[in-house]
């Protein structure tokens, strides 16, 4: 049997080629899509997943009428399960009990209730609007000639997609400032140390107390000094900080603000939680695998994360270098759906063959990818004081 490729890696290749062309960066040109999609699994020693995601947090369960991907990666997620199933007798730590509860219920009901409860969930055959755009303009600002230097990126995001986008911009020469909440740092620092260091090397680290007015003022000043902002919070999280992203964009000529979401920035979907594995399922990737191989499963490792990261980097650089100030909404499940449509349009048979190979290889070690070097990582909040001092002088 052939060594399987990670399906859709070719889409990441194409995005990298565009980014390399736009930035002229040798470091970007030297990267390949398979590496971006597989490097976390390489570092973690993951295996090709079947019904449990490569990272272990997401699992496929059969409901009465469809298969569901339910992500229970956060420590508090299981506390919501009694409310999801309207049961006070369920053992929330027992995945077999969860499977039995899901098996007796309809997928649509569970998806709707889970989204209300803030759980990350998706159905294998979720009705997905055809031809959905992976990137939409949420607000437009005034155009401005980009400065004759590399952009300054303020990254407010955590985990994988947003930090990968700013990492790629850093490789292309950008100055990147990673801003974290003192109370709620990027949890991947602890969970996935080596991978965290890979994505966040070379960035400056600013840690702020978002309940402190001085720190909030500093945050606003930092944002105002940025060329590109990357953010992946739900709307009410920004609102609580008193930050109106669209207003910032309208008031700051040339500012590019990237909002990464699970399932879209508008309407009810803006509040739905989505992570890399369940967003891939929502996009129809597991349905495609199922159709090609006769067996459902996860494709890649949290595949929506790296695909969205490289996609967001391309969009951010393109908007910034053309001087078009805008707030761009990039939804992880829409990015995967778009990649899936492209892969089918280009070579439907070849893509189906890739999916069959992937399914047949379940349980084997993840495809071998290049191990990238990891440079120095600053300590948590190492650059906070120097930025606060700079803000105080303004």
């Amino acid at each position, binding site marked *: 049997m052939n060594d399987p490729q990670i399906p859709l890696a070719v889409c990441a290749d194409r995005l990298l080629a565009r980014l390399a062309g736009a930035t002229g960066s040798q470091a970007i040109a030297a990267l390949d899509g398979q590496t971006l999609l597989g490097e976390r699994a390489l570092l973690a020693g993951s295996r090709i997943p079947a019904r449990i995601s490569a990272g272990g947090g997401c699992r496929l369960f059969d409901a009465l009428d469809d298969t569901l991907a339910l*992500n229970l990666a956060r420590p508090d997620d299981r*506390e919501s399960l009694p*409310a999801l199933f*309207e*049961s006070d007798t369920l053992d929330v730590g027992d995945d077999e009990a969860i499977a039995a509860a899901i098996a007796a219920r309809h997928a649509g009901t569970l998806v709707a209730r889970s989204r209300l409860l803030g759980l990350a969930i998706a159905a294998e055959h979720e009705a997905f609007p055809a031809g959905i755009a992976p990137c939409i303009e949420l607000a437009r600002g005034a155009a401005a000639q980009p400065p004759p230097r590399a952009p300054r990126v303020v990254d407010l995001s955590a*985990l994988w997609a947003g930090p990968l986008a700013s990492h790629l911009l850093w490789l292309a020469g950008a100055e990147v400032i990673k801003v974290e909440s003192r109370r*709620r740092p990027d949890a991947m620092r602890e969970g996935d140390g080596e991978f965290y260091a890979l994505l966040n090397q070379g960035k400056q680290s600013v840690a702020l107390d978002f309940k402190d007015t001085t720190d909030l003022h500093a945050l606003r000043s930092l944002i105002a000094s940025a060329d590109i902002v990357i953010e992946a919070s739900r709307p009410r*999280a920004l609102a609580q900080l008193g930050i109106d992203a669209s207003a910032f964009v309208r008031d700051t000529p040339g500012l590019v603000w990237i909002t990464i979401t699970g399932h879209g920035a508008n309407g009810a979907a803006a*509040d739905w939680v989505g992570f890399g594995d369940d967003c891939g399922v929502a996009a129809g990737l597991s349905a495609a695998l199922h159709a090609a191989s006769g067996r459902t499963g996860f494709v890649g490792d949290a595949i929506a994360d790296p695909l969205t990261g490289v996609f967001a980097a391309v969009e951010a650089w393109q908007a910034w270098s053309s001087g078009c100030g805008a707030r761009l909404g990039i939804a992880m499940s829409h990015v995967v759906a778009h990649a899936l449509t492209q892969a089918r349009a280009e070579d439907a048979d070849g893509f189906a063959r890739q999916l069959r190979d992937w399914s047949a290889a379940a349980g084997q070690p993840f495809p071998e990818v290049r191990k990238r070097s990891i440079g120095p990582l600053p300590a948590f909040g190492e650059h906070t004081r120097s930025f606060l001092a700079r803000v105080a002088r303004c």
Partner: protein
Amino acid sequence: MKPGTKLKSAVCDTEVMVIKAADVAVDCGGAPMAAERPAERGVIDPAFAAGTKMGKRYVDEAGTLELLCVKAGQGSLSVGGVALKLKDAKPLPASD
């Protein structure tokens, strides 16, 4: 009261879903909440008029009761005259 039960305010738009159930009566805006709204809307007690926020979780002091606000309103939540407090944001996964 069972986990997953929905309760509606008798005095404002607030609706909550029970996450952790306790054997207590929950008030909103100073008036008892119930599965159905009364035909005529009551008046909010000014002492419980701080409002509820969509998507926020509210807990009692002991942590035995937890409610998720699924529709915001002007009244605020209490049990036995003691206001419920906001629960801190969910920690992020260590990896996804």
